């Protein structure tokens, strides 16, 4: 039974994982909302430059990366469900797939950075690219932390899901979904809005 179904069954409303992690997620997402507004504000000052700069980005790459993160998130949801059912092998497999999705996203991002830098485009090129590198770079840091967290959770699962494992897993899962959530808004903002 999923937590949603579980809560519906018992009638109790429940926040997955640790409330402290959720406070961090809330603060982090609202900070990104501030960055979105800052980006849009700068864009209004020079719409033509932002639109022209965006042409050098490949939206297919952004879409592929979105799908990779969505798929990773789906595997993480299944991992939480597997842990609840004490299906250790399935849990480890799902976490492994989510980690693979995260690594694939990161690899594509690095290749994208390399391509841009190879064409002489850096953070100092113009305001659009300053935001592009800063926002995707900050998101990349979140992604790397997420991959590390999922790897630790996978190692702990192999060691037998001791102690408060379910709570740690749910907290890590919530963090991972945040990485997905932020990219869902960053993708149209940087690649598609023109």
């Amino acid at each position, binding site marked *: 039974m*999923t*937590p*949603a179904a*579980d*809560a*519906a069954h018992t009638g109790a*409303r*429940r*926040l*997955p994982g640790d409330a402290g992690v*959720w406070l961090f997620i*809330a603060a982090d*997402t*609202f900070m*990104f*909302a501030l960055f*979105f*507004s800052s*980006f*849009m*504000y700068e*864009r*209004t*000052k020079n*719409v*033509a430059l932002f639109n022209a700069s965006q042409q050098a980005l490949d*939206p*297919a790459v*952004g*879409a592929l990366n*979105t*799908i990779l993160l*969505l*798929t990773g*998130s*789906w595997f*993480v*949801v*299944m991992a939480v*469900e*597997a842990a609840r059912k004490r*299906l250790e092998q*399935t849990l480890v*497999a*799902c976490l492994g797939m989510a980690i693979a999705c995260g690594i694939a996203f990161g690899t594509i991002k690095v290749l994208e950075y390399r391509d841009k830098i190879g064409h002489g485009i850096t953070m100092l090129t113009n305001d659009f690219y300053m935001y592009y590198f800063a926002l995707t770079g900050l998101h990349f840091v979140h992604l790397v932390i997420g991959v590390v967290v999922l790897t630790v959770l996978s190692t702990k699962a192999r060691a037998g899901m001791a102690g408060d494992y379910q709570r740690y897993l749910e907290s890590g899962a*919530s963090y991972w*979904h*945040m990485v*997905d*959530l932020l990219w*869902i*808004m960053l*993708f*149209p*903002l940087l*690649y*598609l*809005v*023109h």
Partner: protein
Amino acid sequence: MRSLVVQPVTFIWVALVLATSFAWWSANGGVVPSVEATAIVVIVAAVKARLVILYFMDLKAAPRSWRLLFEAWVALSTGVILGGYWYGLHAAKLAG
């Protein structure tokens, strides 16, 4: 594994992937002009974000204050992007 895959959350994932493909198609040679396409992709992103919050992050079953907080984030982010875009269109018209 099969019992985990055959769950409502899998349909949410399929919907999210289809929505992403639709947004990409809309913005790249879709059937509507670019201003409408931009509005569509931002609204599609808002719907996707909401699906992730409710079904992946499981805030549908969480205390209402947490759900409201993140629903507000989606509304704020969407509003800021659409509002900024609309303002940018007017700024371009005023300048040109």
